[in-house]
């Protein structure tokens, strides 16, 4: 059970308040009709399943309902940092 710091509520709360929402920075293609089936499938289905420090999305589902970014080690489960999405979040560099 993780202890997760919500960057909006500014509190560390129990994992049971949150839901994971997949790998971060998977941007929806700007022109889906203009890309190949393979490129579309890459966006819809394929994830890196990275071993090591990994950016993912979580939502404070039973709290402020905000989605935010979490950098977490998939080996030790240690959370290295959390961050809110930027205004144009897909391009956010962290």
């Amino acid at each position, binding site marked *: *059970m993780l202890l997760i710091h919500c960057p909006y509520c500014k509190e560390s709360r129990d994992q049971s308040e949150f839901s994971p929402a997949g790998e971060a920075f998977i941007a*929806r293609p700007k022109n*889906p009709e203009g890309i190949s089936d393979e490129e579309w499938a890459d966006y819809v289905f394929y994830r890196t399943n990275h071993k090591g420090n990994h950016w993912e999305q979580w939502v404070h589902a039973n709290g402020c309902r905000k*989605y935010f970014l979490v950098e977490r080690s998939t080996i030790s489960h*240690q959370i290295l940092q959390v961050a809110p999405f930027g*205004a144009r*979040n897909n391009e956010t560099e962290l």
Partner: protein
Amino acid sequence: MRLAQHSSHQVDYSKSLNFIFNNKRYKGYEGDTLASALLANDSFLFARSFKYGRKRGLMAAGVEEPNALVSLEIGGRYTPNLKATEITLYDGLSAVSASNPNAFDMRAFIKPLHRFMPAGFYYKTFIKQKVWAKVEDSIRAFSGFSKAPTEEDVDVYDHIFHHAEVVVIGGGAAGISAALEVLNNSEKERVILVDERSQLGGELFNEFSSDEAAMTWHKDSVNRLLSFSNKDSERFTLLTQSTAYAWHDQNFIEVLETITTAESLTSSESQKARKIVHRIRAKEVILATGAHERPMLFEANDLTNIMLSQSVRRYLHEYGVISGKKVVIYGNNDSIYSTAKDLHVNDIECIVVDVRSSEKPIEIISELKDSGVKVLQGYSIVKALGSHRVKGVEIKQTMLQGNSWQVFGDTETLSCDLLATSGGFNPVVHLDCHNGAKTYFDEVSQSFLPQQDRDNREVCGAVAGAGAWQDAIIDAKNKAQFTLNALGVVSKLTQEILSENYSNFFNVSQFFTPKEILNMPKVFLDLQNDVTTLDVALSIREGYRSIEHIKRYTAMGFGTDQGKTGNINGIAVAAELLEIPMSEVGTTTFRPAYTGVDFGAMAGREIGDFFDPQRYTTIHDSHVASGAEFEVVGQWYRPWYYPKTGENMHQAVHRECLAARTSLGMMDASTLGKIDVQGSDAREFLSRVYTNAWMKLAPGSCRYGLMCNEKGMIIDDGVSACINNNHFIMTTTTGGAASVYSALEMWLQTEWSDLDVHLNSVTDQYSTVAVVGPNARKLMKLLCQDVDFERENFKFMQWRQGTVCGVDARIMRISFSGELAYEINVEANYGRYIWDQVAITGEQWNITPYGTESMHVLRAEKGYIIVGQDTDGSMTPMDVNMSWILAKDKSFSYVGRRSFSISALCTEDRLQLVGLMTKDSSTVLPEGANAIDNKGKSIGYVTSSYFSPILNRSIAMAQIKGGLSKIGETVLVKIVQKKQGLKEIPCEISSSVFYDIEGEKVDGND
């Protein structure tokens, strides 16, 4: 037997207790465990073994015990598979062995077959031969475990959450010392000390008779600890009879506390929790979990009264109990001499057999020899004698040559009635490994020690390799200093010096695994699962190399004791046979839970009404008063049907459906999910998440929408109303409300944060009463005067603001039945009032409330899908024949659209939604039944099936491969009927719209 002159720290001889074990009455004392009390009564037999039905007794005195599994109490208090060594005695206790050792045992007959039952026996014999299903029940009945409970648990269980700066796990010398050091050197840091035994002290009790200093230190230290909790209960929490069974990420520790009082276990009134799960979030963890002794290996090492040496000492010191008069003590380390000394002091005859040859004289050995104790050095036990209880041992001379043990010379025999063995000590690294730590093999102590440096945790005492109690105390103090330093409480460390013996864990010799012994039969490694050295050898011959595979092939360590005594010996045997070092073999993975956890304790109070939230509409009481039957839909209790006196479900649904079709019905539709969508981009947002067009929907109008995910699969549907250009109310399915809301928020927050849209769930804010049937307009005119209900002025798929019986309402003219229908939405608390007014005013048209079952029939007659019933997450809009709802000309590629053109979603033979009409109109197909082709292969299945009262025949919807191009064809549906057995029902594939195909009913009567 119990020693006559014994003063115990643990047992109160003034309080005697009665208990029943295996249908016999016994007496014990307060402070006894079930195991110690039975040993005191000379009752040694506890179990029949798992595979061979061998009689087994106690091997240990604590959590590591593999044999003495019992079930406690009966009826609603029945608890299976507890260890007798961990059950604190109380007056009136009743228990039976998990496998009754005295009962007639079938396995006695197959006993001569022992040699035919090696590892993999069951698999090779039964599963490979495909007869497992036939024999499984009878084989499982052999197994040495208790039956599962059959009655509801009458006890109460609790969960308690804690936060602490420091958690110390283990209350032996090291744990006490560490907790004290933290408390003494800090001011407000909260400390929790957890120990599985009923009294603090751990193995320290074993030193009491021989070491006055140990006794004094224990008394002083425990008093000082308790003074902290007396002074300030916030600062120090002591949890005894509490096992830390799991250590999760970020120092989240789960502890199971057993409350054992006669009152809590025998009184029927008691509401005191029987067990409590403590969930602790700690900043720093100090592990002082100690070590478990491992047994020596020899033939027939599983006979009754062969016990671990430290356990013999523990029974002696804590309970004044010894289970023999003539004891052989056998081992490979110095601890066996302490056992001999303790027994000798109590006038018990003993002989010591040490595999090690004498190198340098040790004080304790000469002391024992001088007092007349026979000590044989350089000897090993090769076989235990006796049929059930040990009667003697065969010994041979032994020598370590290079790296391998040699056994030689003539066999001699020693007689005994108790055999105590010690093969060294296994540090209890389990918890540390739960949390990702690795172990390393330490040659000096011949054991796997915990990884040295980890953040936020220290290890001290025996688990870290400290053998003597004095060293454990100093080690713990030093480690506690590191913890205080990590907490920022102290900056200067004051480390004390350890004795030079620190890392020398009782001077253990190399594992005694000579091939002569490993090749003997019945050298048991895992007593609970009957795994022998020959099983490990077989697994290696069959090609297994990894210890994880050997474990799974032999089932070594799979019992309820998780191999606490046997696993490391098994690793040593594998190392010997594979001819590689122990460190290369490594350990198997330690996973939670360290010991068994009761399901009741896991559930805590979250049972019955508290298992899951129950949601009721504000109209619920009226449904109850009307005698409705309910069904649970995504936590909501929805009326299912409203039976009148004497009616069954079928009759009630028949009446309800006809009322809605011919006159007037009413329904509580409040549970549908409602999401308020506001903002200048609300319209654009709906266009992106629904497949159809929303840009031109005028205020005052509604539209049905279908929602897909990016994979192109249908996830939800519902009607949304345009309130104004910046405001829509979206409805979702009852069960899908939360996940749809969450998906929409995700799009807005992570992908389209440039859209000005705000969402809010308003499901609970509105009550909705649907008025359905050809007479609906007449009724609405009576209920609401400020809305024009004329059909040309208030059309299908429009909504109006009005006043219904004095209450502000949004009235939507939408229909899930094909009939003229209005949904009256009011502020939630007026729901019951409006429901009652509708019912009273509608009496003249015989208005009939109907539930979800009739709703399903009515919608199926019209071919309307239910997402989640007619679709299963792999259906596209094309698959359900709804291509008409896919907008072609939206500027934005809405969610899911791109996937529709992926080749796999465009093939002809996809499952497609069609209607099914049984040739015999009275046969109602069961939902889920398979449609088959002429070869008997499944080509789809029935998703919805009902008897339609208005059509007076059965109707069904089904997913059939390529079904849309097979309309008019006949297909067989395979069903099982109670009397006739398997039957194939011929059906015609049809359109899924069965009633009012032209849609003429939607305007109703004027």
